[in-house]
Each structure stands twice: as C-alpha cells, then as structure tokens.
C-alpha cells in the first residue's frame, strides 16, 4: 500500500432497496491534496462519503486508511481514524455554544473545564485563520459561522482527513473565499481534503484533482489543471453537452401582469416592499436580481396572495379583461393561472411534504379538483409519471416518500409540479439552488419552453451569469424597492452588481 495515500477505497458497494447508490467504487485520496468529488444529483457522492464517516456501512468492498484496512461502523470509528465530515446539513446542537458542540462526545475529565476548552479552540482558530467566538450559541450564528464550528470540531478531534459536502452552497462569495483560504492552509499542513461541490469554477480554482461519479459508478480521476468546465461536465453526464441556454427572441409579447406602487409591511412592522411597479409580459422571462433578502420572496408571495399588501395594485390581463389580484385568496389567484414555485434553503421547508410520496405531493396542488369527497388519484399519478420521465427524476418509484430522494431530485419534483399545471404566469425562485449543472440546464430549458408557450415567467435567481443568459429583462431589487429594470441582452454583470447595492432611478 502506498502510504502517501490517506484514503483508498476498493470496490465499494452500497444499495438502498433495489437501487445501487454506489457500485464498485475505487478511489484514492493523497495526503496534502484537495480532491473534488463531482457528480450529478443522486450520483452517490454523499452516500460514498457517509460510508467514510460511519453513517452508512458499505455492503461490499474495502477501505484503507493510511495503508491499513479498516472497518468504519460508527462516526466514532471515523473520528478515531482521523476522518471528519462536514455535512450539508450541519450536525450541531442549536442550544449549545460553539465550544460545547466542539467537545461533544469526546472523552476527558468528567467535569467540564470550559475555560481550558475555549483556550484550546482559540489556538486552532489562530493557527488556521478562522473567525469565531467559541462561547456564542449556535442559534445566534450565521450559516458561515456554523460551518466554521463544524470544521473546528473536526480539527479539535485531530482530523487528518476532512470531507466537506457542498460547503459553499450557502455561503456568500466573500465567505467562500475565506473558507478556501482556510482549506488551502490545511492542505499545506498535510491534511487530505475531499470537497463535494456543484460549482465547477470552484472545483477548478481550489482542487488538485477531480474524481467523477455517475449514477453510483466511478468514472475516473483527472488533474484539475488538465480539466475544463466542459470536459468535467461531459464526464459527469456521460455524453456531449453544450452549456448554452438557448434563449430565443421573445415573440408575441403582450402585457400579462401589471404591478403598481406595491407596498408590503411584515408582521414586525418592517416595510419589505416599497412602491414597487413593473410589468411582466407573456412570452418573456423577467429576471429578478438582488442581494438575498431584498424583497424577492415578499414580491413573489405578494403576487401569489400570501402577503399582507398595504398599498398598490396587481392586475392580471386576460383575453376576457383585467382582474385585480389584490384582495383575492391564494387559491383564487392560483386558479386564475398564477403559479409560484419557491425553493427555500432547506428545499423541503416549503411546498413539499417529506413523508408523502411523489404522486401525493403533486396532488397537493389539485386535491380540490373534481366532484365528491374522494380525491382523484389517477390524474396526479399520470402527471407525476410525466414529471419523473421528462425531468429524469431518479427514484425507485412514484410511491416513494419524497424525503428519501436526493436533494436535486426533490427540487425537480417541486419545479416540475408548478410547470405541469400550465400556468399563465410562472414565478420561480431559486429553482436551481443546489442542483448540479446538467439538471440546472434541464430546468433552464423547461423555463424557456414555458416562455415560448406564451407564459409570463418571473425568475428569481442568485447567479447573475445565468440571469443575463436566461432572462429577457432583469428587474433589480435593492432594500425592497426597484433600483432599475434593464435589458438582459445589453447589460453587464457589473452594472447589475452596482444596482444591487445602490438605489438608482435609471430605468431604460
């Protein structure tokens, strides 16, 4: 065995029911390197890493750590071998302080000497360049602080192998840069780091090598400096792909939704939307950009009838005339043809019920249809099958509880359900949050198809590059008011970035 290898995996297999999550995976990670693990949603990356961290036990295969064959049956075993995993969903106790979380489960003097613990943590913080107050409670922390706690927790336990599952999905660009600096410090310290991410530019800028999984199987490992975004995507997908959003010029554009002087106030009395006016047109995609929390969510919810509107009007233009939406219930608005699909940070938080199966979740939108007290299951089932088929949702069957699906597949169902109802106005927020690149493009295509069908699409996105390529016009929100509406074909990223932080009256 090569002792330069921190980890070696040989023919690892793991099944869930009849589905192979991992099949004959052979992989090695060296000391002092950052390895990116790449793959589409549901390709088995997280499952594989969970076997290293003792959450799952492999059905078959061997694991070598530092050249010695090991059996990892619990997270405790993993710690003892120096493996630390930072999960996508943080495993922290909300009501504990950072320090308490860090020493959780560790042996030591039975009566806790908190001062000594805090001191030791502060040493680690200094060594690797973190920023953290060890006595702060987790519930008072930002996402990036929580992540820092997780990483320090592993280092405190003497981890030499660090696994990070989509660490940047919830971070701002600045926080991401800081994380990467810390990770590079650790690599230089001789630690082996595995990072799972969907963001190809991060893979290219951070890692030394890239390993690719596809549908539970190992495809290969390449040196990062020899890889490009396109070559990696092709390895992931297994066929030639073109990373182009086929935006067609809008045809037959006409007014669908007119919003005038919309002002909303939340429960705490804070004005979330200030005097917002714009029009959404059929056959066009209106992108909405803004720093997180600038009123994107409130705007979409106001149109969908889920917000208290203090002032203003929302008019829906139809062949039969104009309909005022303010004052109507959310169900009435939906029946008129205004659909909202909102993907929250935790995906399952809004719009889907984890314990119900795919078909039942699709039925949540149509359970009121038909006569009599019994629900009609036939149509939702057909619709579900269509969604599964068209969006390539990986699932054992449509009667699988949705929480058993991987994150990306859950999202496909969420977005697919809204589109399948053939709305006149489709509002979608963060539709590709956490999705791999190929699935993201499937979603972009779906949205484009809707636009070509004559639907007025409102798309709230985080990625400005995508917004510029996908949308026809972009509305920029800043602090709850519109700082401008620009043509996506002629604007630059910098211009929008500026408008996101500065109120401007320039409207083209």
């Amino acid at each position: 065995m090569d002792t330069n290898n921190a980890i070696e995996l040989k023919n690892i297999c793991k099944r869930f029911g009849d589905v192979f999550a991992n099949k004959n995976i052979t992989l090695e990670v060296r000391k002092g390197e950052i390895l990116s693990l790449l793959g589409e949603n549901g390709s088995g990356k997280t499952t594989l890493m969970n076997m290293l961290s003792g959450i799952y036990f492999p059905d078959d295969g061997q694991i070598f750590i530092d050249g010695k064959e090991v059996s990892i049956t619990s997270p405790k075993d993993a710690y003892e071998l120096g493996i630390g995993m930072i999960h996508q969903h943080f495993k922290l106790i909300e009501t504990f302080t950072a320090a308490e979380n860090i020493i959780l489960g560790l042996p030591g003097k039975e009566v806790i000497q908190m001062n000594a613990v805090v001191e030791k943590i502060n040493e680690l913080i200094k060594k690797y360049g973190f920023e953290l107050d060890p006595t702060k409670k987790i519930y008072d922390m930002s996402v990036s602080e929580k992540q820092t706690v997780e990483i320090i927790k592993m280092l405190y336990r003497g981890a030499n192998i660090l696994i990070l599952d989509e660490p940047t999905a919830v971070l701002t660009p600045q926080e991401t840069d800081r994380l990467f600096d810390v990770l590079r410090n650790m690599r230089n310290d001789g630690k082996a780091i595995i990072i799972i991410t969907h963001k190809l530019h991060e893979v290219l800028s951070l890692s030394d090598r890239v390993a690719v999984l596809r549908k539970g199987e190992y495809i290969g490992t390449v040196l990062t400096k020899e890889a490009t975004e396109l070559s990696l995507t092709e390895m992931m997908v297994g066929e030639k792909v073109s990373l182009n959003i086929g935006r067609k010029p809008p045809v037959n554009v006409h007014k669908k939704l007119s919003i005038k002087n919309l002002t909303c106030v939340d429960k705490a009395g804070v004005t979330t939307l200030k005097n917002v006016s714009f029009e959404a047109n059929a056959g066009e995609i209106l992108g909405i950009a803004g720093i997180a929390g600038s009123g994107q969510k409130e705007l979409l919810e106001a149109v969908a009838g889920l917000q208290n509107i203090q002032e203003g009007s929302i008019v829906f233009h139809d062949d039969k005339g104009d309909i005022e939406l303010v004052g109507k219930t959310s169900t009435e608005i939906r029946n008129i043809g205004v659909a909202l699909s909102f993907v929250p940070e935790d995906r399952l938080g809004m719009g889907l019920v984890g314990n119900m199966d795919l078909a039942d979740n699709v039925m949540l939108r149509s359970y009121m249809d038909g006569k009599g007290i019994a629900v009609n299951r036939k149509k939702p089932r057909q619709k579900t099958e269509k969604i599964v088929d068209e969006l390539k949702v990986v699932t054992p069957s449509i009667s699988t509880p949705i929480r058993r699906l991987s994150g990306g597949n859950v999202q496909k169902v969420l977005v697919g359900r809204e589109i399948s109802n053939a709305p006149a106005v489709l509002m979608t927020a963060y539709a590709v949050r956490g999705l791999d690149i190929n699935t993201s493009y499937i979603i972009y295509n779906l949205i484009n198809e809707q636009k070509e069908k004559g639907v007025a699409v409102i798309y709230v996105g985080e990625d400005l590059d995508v917004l510029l390529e996908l949308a026809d016009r972009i509305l920029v929100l800043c602090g709850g008011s519109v700082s401008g509406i620009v043509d996506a074909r002629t604007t630059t990223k910098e211009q929008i970035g500026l408008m996101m932080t500065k109120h401007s009256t320039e409207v083209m």
Partner: protein
Amino acid sequence: MNIILIILKKIFTVTFIQKAVTQGIPILYGATGEIMTERSGNLNLGIPGIMYMGGIGGLVGAFAYEQSVAVPNGWVGVICALVVSMLFALIGGLIYSFLTITLRVNQNVTGLALTTFGVGFGNFLGGSLSRIAGSAGQVSVYITGQTFRTKIPFLSTKLGVVSDIVFSYGFLTYFSIVLAIFLSWFLFKTRKGLNLRAVGEDPAAADAAGINVIRYKYVATCTGAVISGLGGLYFVMEYLGGTWQNNGFGDRGWLAIALVILALWKPARAIWGCILFGGLYILFAYVPFGDAMQEIFKMLPYVVTIVVLVISSVREKKDSQAPKSLGLSYFREDR
C-alpha cells in the same frame, strides 16, 4: 377581602406547608425521573404507571420480608422495599425503552399503554396482597412504613418551627432534593450530561459526534423510570405509612409530567415547583367553599402549567424549550 385573609391565614401555617411538601415529594421524584428521560428525547407518558409499579414493588418487598421473619427489622424492610421497588420500576422503564428505542414504536402510544398497564398492575397486586394479608382485609407493612417515616434525630425536635417545617420528614424527602440538585449539576456541568442533552436535542448530531445514542437513551430512560418509581414508593411508605389503596396515587403521575414543563426541564427548578404543586393540590381543604370546589382547585396545577407553557412559548427563549427531538425515535440510516 375577608375571605382572602382567611385563606392566607390558613395557608401560612406549619401544617399546610408540611402537607404541601408531603404532597410535592412524589411529584418531584416523578418529575426528576421524567426530566432525565425527556432529556434523552423520550417522552415517557408511562411515568404515572411506572410510579404505581414502584409503589407496589416497595410494598411487595416489605410485605414479603415482614411475613418471612418473626420480628422484622425496620431498616431491613426499607432495603427490601427499595430494591424491589426499583426493580419493578426498572422493568417498566425497560419495557418502554425496548419498545420505543429498539423497535421504534410511537412513544405516546407506548407510554399511555404502559400507564394503563402500571395502574392495573399496582391495583391487582395491591388487592392480592390484601387478600393474602387475611383478616385485616388491608395489607400493611407497619414496621417498614414507620422506618421510612423516621425523622432526623435532634434537628427534627430542637429547632422549634424550623424543625417542623424543614426537618420533620423521612429520608426519602431529603434524598429527592439532593438528587434533583445533583442531576441539575450532572446535566449542565459534566460531559455525560452534555452528551445526554445533545441526544435529546438532535440525536443525529450527537451520533455524528461519536455519542452512542442508543445507550444514552436506554440508560437515561431506565434511570428516569427508577427515580420516578421512588415517588410511588414514597407515597406508599411515607405518605400512607405502608399500606395500599386502589387508585390511591391518583393523578399525581400526570402532575409530575406537568411539573417537567413548569421546571423547564431543569431538575433543580422542580424542587420549588413540586411544593407549589403540592400546595395547590390540597388548597381546596383550606378554603371555606366546601368539598364541592375540590375538583376545580385540583385543576390549579395544570392551569399554572398552561400559563408557564404560554409564557415560555411567547418569550421564545431557545434555552428553555423542550428538547428538540422529544417524542421522535432515532434511526441512523433513516433519511
């Protein structure tokens, strides 16, 4: 105004405080046990039943001993009672643990079934013992019961009112208070306590931190059951003086579960809470409204609990909420 004065006069008497304490101690045991259980994420609604089991267990142990020797020694009786009582309660705790932790049966259903079982089990054995006891028609372990009531020498007589209010009880009373304080210290100052609280808050996170979740749940639930069982033992021995009364323990088990909420899952806080509950529980006897008002006054502890629940949820203070995974079973590979 007059009526309030009369009530206050009756309440601020030594006997009222003594009675409040004697009523409160079994509830304190129950609450302390339930707090330990809930801190591991298990909502054991079987506690009322387990307290019956602990009570009858003590009686069985003492009765068997007193029947088997010609001249029973009170302290040997006490030990027999303690051992069998703890054993019976432990069995209750093990049944609950096996069903909810290993088999992951719904905790509420299991707990309620266990309460139904425990109450019936206690009444059945109590009735059987009375039959065996023969002519008196009532089982009695007088010697053991009196030993349980032994007061601390000197302190209980020489200090006047202080003796009456503070030192006029048996050893189980003082043990319950020491235990509650010790467990508060354990939960908040030791590593095992930290780990246990983590298991109750988020077993997946605790598991990922290398804590043996299943073991912690078993140990906490069974220890909690044994502690609660002592409440039943206290009632049978110190309160009743070593005899059995069918359904005599009444709804004190449910009061214990309510007290857990009042104490905000901190054992030391349950100490004053148990005396408050004990006082409210017997308040009807001190108000000049007659027995007709009895049941309304007995509601008071629950009213207080609801008020505390309302206040603590309005304040939304994250540190004084129920353990987050309370009532949920844990399975590592579940997604």
